[in-house]
């Protein structure tokens, strides 16, 4: 392939609840480690996911990837799966803490399957003050604690 190599980034939004808790730890230890995030009833966030893809710009379309394809993929695979859900109830977090680090790895795993461009970075903002980025340096295995 020739032509300029550009990076396209797109942000998606969803709202979800979660609770940070590890069954293997005592209730006291859970409270110590996770603080208010261990509240038994959970709490929620407006998450912002930013995905960055690299690719040669197609001469006929001017695009790294067609945004409609990417948005359709995100709607099906990300928004439908996570929006207005309790993260703790999802299969991917059955054995893993739904921390935003782990969520970031899961989002990477999802968008790695997007067929039309090369995934370079996933950024997840949990709040205005917390953000996590993953560049695929190691296999995205979710961590329990």
């Amino acid at each position, binding site marked *: 392939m020739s032509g*300029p*190599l*550009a990076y396209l*980034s797109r942000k998606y939004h969803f709202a979800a609840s979660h609770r940070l808790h590890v069954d293997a730890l005592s209730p006291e230890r859970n409270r110590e480690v996770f603080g208010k995030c261990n509240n038994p009833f959970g709490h929620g966030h407006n998450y912002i996911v*930013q995905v960055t893809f690299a690719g040669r710009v197609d001469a*006929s*379309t*001017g695009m790294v990837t067609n945004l409609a394809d990417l948005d359709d993929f995100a709607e099906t695979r990300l928004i439908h799966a996570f929006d207005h859900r309790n993260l703790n109830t999802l299969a991917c977090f059955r054995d893993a803490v739904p921390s935003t680090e782990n969520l970031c790895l899961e989002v990477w795993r999802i968008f790695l399957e997007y067929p039309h461009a090369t995934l370079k970075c996933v950024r997840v903002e949990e709040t205005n003050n917390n953000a996590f980025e993953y560049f695929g340096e190691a296999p995205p295995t979710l961590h329990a604690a």
Partner: protein
Amino acid sequence: MSAPAQCPAHPIPDDFMILLTRKADFSSAHFYWNDAWSDAENERVFGKCSNRQGHGHNYTLEVTVKGSIDPTSGFVVDLKEMKEIMEREVVSVYDHRHLNHEVPEFQQMQPTTENVAISIWRRLAGKIPNAELYRVRVYEMPDLFADFFGEGA
């Protein structure tokens, strides 16, 4: 606007001193159309962006340069000068214009976010004194942006 300037695929080189980013805004109209295709194919590929009456965006441009800090001024570049260069080379040409009809480079290519970033790189490369262009980022809207680091420019 919160992501760091550095890209994992573009590690800061050894001679790196500091990155400096300057923003500018412009508002422009555009549409996507490939003359080699039928109307139906254009509509299939480009969707609502193929409306030839055009539509528009408030673009935000972020230009990042890398360079050494001048020991006298404490600057990498004179920001006033950088602002003037961005204004002259880009904003005055793109702002309140129809990219397809009024900006020469988009006679040859689609005015997508990617190509706007590439075109701005070409307009600015080599024109900022004492600094090297590192990245051009163009936001077409807050949730969509393209980065160009000069690869294959």
